[in-house]
């Protein structure tokens, strides 16, 4: 059935569904338009590279940008080895045993755990239990755990695209399974893994709830110099500016600016992922 034919036959449902779909799109465009329209006056080069001054009614958001970047890197350092390791185990080694079924069930359930509960876990385990304090380290570990399920799922999908014939070819030459994975499977799966990694990091970069009690700070005069220090982060900064500041109306332009920078950062990461995915596909066909 061609779309055009179905439209002519029953125009009313078509129009209703079209209106609903356009409404959903409108949400997105409205959000983007407002944030960038109102945030534009605040955006300037200085806004990006200056420290906040005068109780944050002047200056810029440099420490929040740097904090978010450092936090995201920390998240990557925590999540990547375990995420890729787990995906390799599930796709390359594991057979259908109760153990692998439990691992898969655990991953699916972890994906549904609310982010604030990850925050509590980070507080109890890293901040208090392991005495890392409220710090970049604790927050990075917390976000790392939060990113694992998505990272594992996307990495496993990337590994699945590598044909079995490649593995057989290497094994038949006498390569060990690890050598096969290292030399043949991973190099082919890397674009897919990179896409998944960037997407999961872009999610982590926008998270607020898990860092509320694990290390984000409202106002620090410097960027963190070591992982045991607290840090400022864009999402937390936006939350504080829009609800907790003494003179909320005065800092509203800064809140818009911060939101615009955060969205831009997240979209840039997503765009990178999409470009890698596209390029990889055309390259291989």
């Amino acid at each position: 059935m061609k779309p055009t034919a179905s439209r002519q036959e029953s125009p009313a449902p078509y129009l209703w569904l079209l209106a609903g779909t356009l409404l959903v799109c409108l949400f997105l465009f409205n959000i983007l338009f407002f944030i960038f329209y109102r945030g534009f006056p605040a955006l300037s080069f200085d806004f990006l590279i200056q420290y906040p001054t005068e109780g944050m009614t002047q200056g810029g958001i440099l420490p929040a940008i740097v904090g978010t970047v450092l936090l995201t890197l920390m998240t990557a350092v925590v999540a990547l080895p375990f995420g890729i390791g787990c995906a390799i185990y599930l796709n390359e080694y594991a057979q259908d045993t109760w153990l692998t079924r439990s691992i898969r069930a655990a991953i699916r359930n972890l994906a549904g755990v609310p982010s604030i509960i990850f925050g509590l876990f980070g507080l109890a385990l890293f901040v208090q239990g392991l005495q890392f304090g409220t710090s970049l380290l604790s927050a990075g570990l917390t976000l790392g755990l939060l990113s694992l399920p998505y990272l594992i799922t996307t990495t496993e999908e990337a590994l699945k695209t590598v044909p079995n014939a490649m593995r057989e070819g290497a094994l038949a030459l006498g390569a060990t399974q690890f050598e096969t994975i290292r030399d043949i499977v991973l190099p082919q799966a890397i674009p897919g893994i990179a896409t998944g990694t960037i997407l999961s990091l872009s999610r982590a970069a926008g998270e607020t709830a898990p860092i509320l009690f694990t290390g984000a700070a409202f106002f620090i005069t410097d960027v963190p110099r070591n992982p045991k220090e607290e840090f400022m982060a864009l999402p937390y900064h936006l939350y504080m500016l829009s609800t907790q500041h003494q003179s909320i109306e005065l800092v509203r332009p800064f809140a818009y600016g911060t939101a615009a920078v955060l969205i831009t950062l997240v979209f840039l990461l997503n765009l990178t992922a999409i470009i890698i995915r596209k390029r990889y596909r055309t390259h291989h066909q």
Partner: protein
Amino acid sequence: MIQIKHLNLYFGTKQVLKTIDLEIAAHKVTALIGPSGCGKSTLLGTLNRMHDLTPDVRMEGEIRVDQIDVLSPQTNVHQLRKKVGMVFQKPNPFPKSIYENVAYGLKINGVAKGEIDEIVEDSLRKSYLFEEVKDKLHEPATRLSGGQQQRLCIARTIAVHPQIILMDEPCSALDPISTGKIEELIGELRKDYTIVIVTHNMQQAIRVSDYTVFMYLGEVVEFSSTEAIFQSPTKELTKNYVKGHFG
């Protein structure tokens, strides 16, 4: 060269190979023929333990390759596979350069860097590919034609100096001209290697092999010189199959 004694193989509860007894001679080409599902590819895969990858496989009996106890868990499977190379049904070159494809097996086996170039060239020559690719050794192997890719896979296999080469319907994905080249190559390789080839194509078995094993429903029905199998089969089943009555 290869001795198989009372080999039984099960996938789960299904018995796929039934008491196989075979002696495969060195420096000869032995063809495994039989209708689809008769177990010929499965039998081939036992010789370099490719079934380690398949879940739920159980084997009984004994296989010896040059005094190595193939099925013993103590046997180093990587050494075994170095000795018993394999060429697959569909060409499966790695997504690397032509050179890297042939060099890969040498690198993992720790061959000194200085020797690799020479072995790569030698292997490509032996598989009649060198003249066609000598100017593009560092281009991706995936740009080669199907027949060239299969010859590259053969070069990749002989680079690690195996004694035996297993071929699982190596021409089934190729056109007649490429098939002809591979068959010619097999004729050349028999001088240095013991070859076991699974084929669906009886004409091919006649053209390339010295001995032929006819299998049916997981059993060896008849094993003899290729000439005998096709000219004067002793079993009714073999006669019907080689005359094209079924399969």
